[in-house]
């Protein structure tokens, strides 16, 4: 007779203890989240440049401990700032659990002011909702509060402060709350990615974001990182990939993926029935919304970015004079007499800018990234902000998240130059 205990052992679902401690749930950079112990339960999400919060089991309750505190954060090498986050990072760690779990989340406040945490999208008792002053007294600096509730849904959710929201959000306080369905995925997911959209007013030359900015931001991020520091999303050809995106920024973002038509499979209320799925190449994610997209990976390097072109640049000047088309040849020399470092820029457009900033001799203000960065296999990428690449290869091992380098296009499948003469071919052109 096989007792239940033995049956569990056989199927590899060893008891609660080892798995429930979640000791290995923190992402090592290129390793899969611990899949062996969770086989059959869920594929843990991979948070871009992020990590998942471990938990302790206490009498059947999954206990998490968040610490709200100031963090020293790097947006990309060359740009650091004093931000606010959880447990040493912005965004805070992913809270991952299963529908039906009873969770207790301890929140310790090490900020200079009061805070609270709202569990965005969760169905829970009013007193656990986390709105400071309304649901609960504020968590004062130094205090620890305990939130406890049973998870009654599954899907992609978020958590963020609900005290002095504009300031605390502006400084980076947010995280994802992923709840997996109790019975496993209806459609098996091979790679489950998640990240949060955000915007920062880190004015050039400064070291702390400005929380009073409403529309003219400087940095646009996936999980508080800008290109070229955002991880690629790696997959093997044919794998089913899900990307969960939450938006706690101050603007809506049309997120665009090259190479596939993805399905939007879920939103704020969890997974949609298949009849509700939409086939898109760009999905607009509004402020406060979450969206899940799924697709089957096809080989290649596929740009994945917000389609607002200024959101794929690092800090730009606001309201600078338009230099396109301005011939400064006569006057540039005279200006250099007054201003030795002066160089006329932008007459033929902005593409040359990345070369200018990279050649040396044209330094920018301290702690400031050039607008356009990144080198691909065929030249400058001239990107920043909300931009990364989905890299799909035939030969990537399941669970391997390491960067496979650049996609080697077969010669017959890459566009090639056939002339350098602008009058070549004499095609029809409207006058």
């Amino acid at each position, binding site marked *: 007779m096989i007792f239940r205990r033995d049956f569990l052992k056989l199927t590899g679902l060893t008891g609660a203890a080892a798995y429930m401690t979640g000791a290995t749930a923190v992402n090592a950079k290129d390793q899969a989240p611990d899949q062996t112990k969770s086989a059959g339960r869920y594929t843990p999400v991979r948070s871009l440049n992020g990590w998942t919060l471990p938990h302790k089991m206490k009498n059947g309750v999954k206990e998490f401990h968040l610490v709200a505190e100031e963090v020293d954060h790097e947006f990309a090498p060359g740009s650091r700032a004093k931000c606010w986050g959880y447990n040493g990072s912005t965004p805070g760690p992913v809270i991952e659990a299963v529908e039906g779990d009873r969770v207790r989340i301890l929140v310790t406040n090490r900020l200079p002011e009061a805070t609270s945490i709202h569990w965005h999208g969760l169905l829970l008792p009013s007193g656990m909702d986390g709105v400071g002053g309304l649901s609960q007294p504020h968590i004062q600096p130094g205090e620890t509060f305990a939130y406890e509730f049973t998870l009654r849904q599954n899907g992609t959710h978020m958590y963020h402060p609900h005290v002095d929201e504009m300031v605390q959000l502006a400084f980076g306080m947010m995280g994802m709350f992923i709840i997996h369905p109790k019975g496993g995925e209806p459609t098996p997911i091979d790679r489950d990615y998640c990240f949060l959209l955000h915007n920062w007013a880190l004015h050039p030359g400064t070291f702390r974001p400005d929380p009073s900015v409403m529309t003219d931001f400087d940095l646009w991020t996936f999980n508080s990182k800008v290109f070229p520091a955002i991880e690629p999303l790696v997959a093997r050809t044919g794998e089913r990939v899900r990307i969960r995106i939450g938006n706690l920024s101050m603007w809506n973002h049309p997120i665009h993926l090259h190479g596939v038509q993805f399905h939007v499979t879920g939103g704020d209320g969890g997974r949609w029935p298949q009849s509700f799925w939409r086939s898109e190449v760009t999905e607009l994610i509004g402020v406060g919304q979450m969206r899940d997209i799924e697709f089957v990976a096809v080989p290649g390097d596929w740009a994945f970015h917000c389609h607002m072109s200024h959101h794929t640049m690092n800090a730009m000047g606001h309201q600078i*004079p338009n230099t396109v*088309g*301005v011939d400064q040849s006569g006057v540039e020399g005279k*200006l250099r007499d*007054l*201003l030795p470092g002066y160089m006329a820029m932008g007459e033929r457009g902005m593409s040359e800018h990345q070369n200018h900033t990279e050649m040396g001799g044209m*330094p920018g203000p301290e702690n400031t990234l050039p*607008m356009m960065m990144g080198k691909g296999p065929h030249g400058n990428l001239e990107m920043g902000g909300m931009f990364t690449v989905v890299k799909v290869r035939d030969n990537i091992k399941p669970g391997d998240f390491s960067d496979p380098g650049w996609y080697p296009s077969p010669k017959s499948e890459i566009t090639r130059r056939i002339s350098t003469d602008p009058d070549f071919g004499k095609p029809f052109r409207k006058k």
Partner: protein
Amino acid sequence: MFHMPRLDKRAIPGLFMALTLSACASLPKDGGRADVNALLAKHGRQMEAPAEGGIDALVGQMLKEPLSAENAVRIGFLKNPKLRAAYARLGIAGAEVFDAGRLANPSFSASFGFGNAAAGADKTALGVAQNFTSLLLLPSRSRLAKGEFERDQQEVAQEILDLGTNIETEYFTLIGAEQTLAMQKTIADAGESAAELASKFRDAGNISLQELSLEQAAAAESRLGVLNSEAAAQRSRHTLNRLMGLPADTKWPLPDTLPEPLKENYAPEKLADLAAANRLDLAAARRKVELLADSLQVTKNFRWLGNVEVGVEQEREGAGRMTGPTLALELPIFNQGQGAIARADYMVKRAAAEVDELEAEIRSAVRIRHAEVKAAGRRALEYRDHLIPLREKVVAETQKQMNFMLVGVFDLLQMKQQEYAAYLGYVEALRDYWVARAELKREVGVPLPCDLANATQSPEQTGSESQPKSDHCHFGENP
């Protein structure tokens, strides 16, 4: 028998002296010039006297190099007609001394009477008379005139010193004006370049007429700045040429920049003491009090003495001769000189009050000028050590922002214009400093102690590269 009027016994030696003096007293050969030059030397100005044709050669030599304050003063002393007028004035005073030391000439009288038959023989009367009062007063008058002559020397010396200070003041004003003009030209050039750049933007269709006009208007304003500065510099050059005694259009090279403020500290009250002890006009005013007091005493001593004339007369009538002394004596019946004494007394009092007034003015002026020098020096250093480097840093940091296209070129040019404005302020402060310092020298009346201490290098020649011999000069203050 008439009584000879009683002579004051004191007058006897005076009589003796007068007779000897009138034999020895003569016009000072150079009109007192040597004495004035000695006074000037004591107050820091060496007067030169090249041979008649040598003046123009010497001046021409000095005008070949960039003009120094010292040379400007030397040229002025050689060529400005003011000096000739001053020395001539002195000569007039000298002549008066001469006259004061001489007895009045005696007068000779003759009368002829041609009688008719009834009158009888013709009558002839001949006489010689000498004013006796003048004899008695001769020593006093001589002494007082000598005193006045010394006072005149002091006043002429003061006039010449003032010319020297005026030249120095104008010299620094001129360099300041030329330096300001150069800066304004740089500012105008930058404005022109900005306007030219704006028109390129306009050609490309990238800025509006309004924005273009704003840039062009700014350029026009800076051209106005140049015009103003040019006029000021011209005015100053003409004035300096006039003070130096040169024709209006004389051209000569000038240092490009004003030197840095000197590192010196003065106890202002000690400077005021120096001025009170050395100012020639104050010395002349004090001397005036002495002379008026002397004059008052003389008036008192001789109050009963009116006009006295003694003489000898001979009358001839036919063959008869009558010879005898004559005496004319003013009788102090209606006037015993009370008015003259009172007047002399009040003149002394007035002169004494004027000395106090002048001393107070001088002390106050020294304090004021010293404060101006200190304030202007501090302003110049604040510009040089803080504002200008900070503005340069702003430009450098703004350039970095422009490198990353975070600000536009017009913002950068504006920052540069602010840097220029700081430099203009610096030049103004430097000019204020040197002009105030020249004025301070005038008020003190003698070379400033720190200038004497650094006598081997004149401040104007060290320029901005080197500092005076000692790092810091203190006078009258604990360092």
